[in-house]
């Protein structure tokens, strides 16, 4: 295939939308369809971001634009027995599985036990709860200047809708397992999650991402999370996709009065990852945590763009990002903190650290604080370093082999991040996976 330019490939995704529409069948009359049409028009206007785009300076998506990728098809390659590798102890009965962006009823294992709680895949929820969804879907994740959000809004027809009514608590953490299979060829998938946590409600969500196959998977996600007054949502995201995956993930969290939202975001797989993680503290006394860890080797690229918007007074945000890169891997951390004029008494903390294990690994890190209020407490720090050779010698001199000494040091660097994972079995499995993975760096 000849080299395509940005316009040609953009036009392909725009024209392909007609095919997508024709396959929607009965869904054309849901109110959301109007939003889709406006989103694809916006995408046509924006096109894919090129390197000259300020927010895409260090992340090159041209490999993704070399082929006209068709929409994802079904895959039957995963059986219930395969899932054991991906599940977490104690969460097997709260499992919602998505294959190539489509909900899989067969692989999922979930029964709702809380009155008023809705946990339903988006494709059917768009029909069954169209009013409830219309209140929130695409109300938070703005596609006006985000091409990937526009694309997802136009194309996404599945994902998960979680609605927790006021005062309800979903005690058992939900596990959203995303699997990709590109053995039948490259594809483009869009998954859309909408989480609405009513006043004074409680919810824990763990999402994980894995895949198989050699052909390109262009996995484009958008999640909107609404956390109402005094609610608490704990969110864990583990991205451990296969080496052919391009993982683009836009998150928009919206917090109301005295709410808590915590995201622990872990990227250890995929070929190219771009996370845009936005948390808006829209009322007083909110608490937002953005915690992250990333690890890459070979030519992996991991880009985390985060933004915390302090719109109102007396909110607290806590952001910690740590990364370990070896081989020719590259990383990007861009951490924006906005403190609006009204947001007096803001307390914002940001720290990001990267460890480079090879001469060819690199990271571009940029804390970006924009403060318009005058009575605030904001601190940020950024460091890039290498493993402490003295410490490695010290460990070796006690009989610990070099490779294990390095793993211990890497673990020591990263482990405080894992402490933020609120579910023990999830923390232990991720912790163990990462410790074992250190050897491959």
């Amino acid at each position, binding site marked *: 295939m000849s080299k395509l330019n940005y316009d040609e490939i953009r036009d392909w995704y725009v024209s392909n939308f007609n095919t997508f529409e024709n396959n929607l069948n009965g869904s054309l009359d849901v109110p959301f369809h109007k939003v889709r049409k406006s989103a694809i028009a916006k995408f046509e206007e924006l096109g894919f971001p090129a390197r000259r785009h300020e927010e895409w300076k260090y992340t090159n998506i041209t490999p993704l634009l070399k082929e006209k990728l068709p929409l994802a098809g079904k895959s039957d390659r995963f059986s219930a027995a395969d899932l054991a590798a991906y599940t977490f102890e104690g969460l097997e009965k709260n499992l919602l599985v998505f294959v190539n962006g489509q909900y899989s009823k067969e692989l999922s294992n979930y029964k709702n036990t809380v009155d008023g709680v809705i946990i339903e895949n988006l494709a059917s929820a768009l029909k069954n709860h169209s009013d409830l969804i219309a209140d929130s879907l695409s109300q938070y994740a703005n596609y006006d200047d985000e091409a990937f959000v526009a694309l997802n809004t136009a194309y996404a027809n599945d994902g998960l809708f979680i609605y927790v009514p006021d005062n309800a608590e979903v005690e058992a953490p939900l596990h959203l397992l995303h699997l990709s299979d590109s053995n039948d060829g490259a594809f483009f998938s869009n998954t859309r999650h909408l989480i609405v946590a009513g006043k004074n409600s409680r919810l824990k969500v763990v999402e994980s991402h894995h895949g198989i196959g050699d052909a390109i998977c262009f996995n484009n996600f958008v999640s909107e999370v609404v956390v109402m007054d005094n609610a608490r949502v704990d969110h864990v995201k583990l991205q451990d996709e296969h080496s052919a995956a391009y993982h683009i993930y836009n998150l928009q969290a919206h917090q109301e009065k005295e709410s808590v939202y915590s995201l622990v975001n872990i990227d250890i797989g995929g070929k190219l990852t771009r996370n845009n993680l936005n948390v808006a503290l829209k009322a007083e006394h909110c608490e937002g945590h953005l915690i992250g860890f990333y690890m890459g080797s070979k030519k992996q690229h991991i880009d985390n763009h985060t933004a915390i918007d302090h719109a109102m007074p007396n909110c607290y945000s806590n952001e910690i990002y740590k990364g370990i890169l070896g081989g020719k891997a590259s990383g990007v951390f861009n951490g924006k903190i906005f403190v609006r004029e009204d947001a007096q008494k803001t307390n914002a903390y940001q720290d990001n650290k990267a460890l480079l294990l090879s001469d060819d690994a690199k990271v571009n890190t940029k804390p970006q604080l924009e403060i318009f209020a005058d009575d605030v407490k904001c601190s940020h720090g950024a460091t890039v370093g290498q493993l402490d050779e003295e410490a490695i010698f*010290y460990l070796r001199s006690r*009989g610990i082999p070099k490779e294990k000494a390095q793993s211990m040091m890497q673990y020591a660097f990263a482990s405080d991040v894992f402490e933020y994972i609120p579910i023990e079995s999830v923390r232990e499995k991720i912790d163990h996976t990462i410790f074992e993975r250190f050897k491959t760096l």
Partner: protein
Amino acid sequence: MITIKDLHASVEGNQILNGLTLEVKPGEVHAIMGPNGSGKSTLANVLAGREDYEIDGGEVTFNGQDLLEMGPEDRAREGLFLAFQYPVEIPGVSNVNFLKTAVNEIREYRGEEKMDAMEFLAYIREKMKLVEMDEKFLSRSVNEGFSGGEKKRNEIFQMAVLEPKLAVMDETDSGLDIDALKIVANGVNKMRGQDRSFIVITHYQRLLNYIVPDVVHVLVDGKIVESGDKDLALRLEAQGYDWVKGEQAAATV
């Protein structure tokens, strides 16, 4: 135990050890004294296998094996222990995890069963008594925020846990007050035995009042210039290193 023959070593192109020869037999305690820059710490680091040091000549045989061919971890597994002059702080690695990993790596190397958490805790508690260590210390990160004295005590504690055949103590007395010095010396003395040897490197004679050596060597310009019994240390203390240097100068004329 260990035989060092005509050892030459340099760091960053500077020759530090100039034909050092030394033999330590099982059960013996040798003290190595010498002025600043004489090569004391270089000797300790070369024996432990630090990679910044270049071996330019000579040989070191440890229990019949060529020590210089081994990586630092294998030297430790074969029973060599270095008590660091400047113990390294390792934030995020707890003492208990560190020691359990070390003990089990060594046991595995020797074909012994690994210790489980319970066994290990019982074992380590016994060793803590030896250097009067507080239990709270186990969960703390290795040497992080430790005072100078605590760090040195931690070295001796590690020595007790790993039960080496040969312990090289690199200026363990520096920075210790008299009480800490006594605790450290007491720990070492309890570990003395006919199968275990010590090389005690020190600048001052003070430590040797508590750890009484079988042999005292004087290291000057990377070579042992004088050896004797414990009285040699007292003489050095009284007369200073210029005395040996002078004697050496006279001998080379």
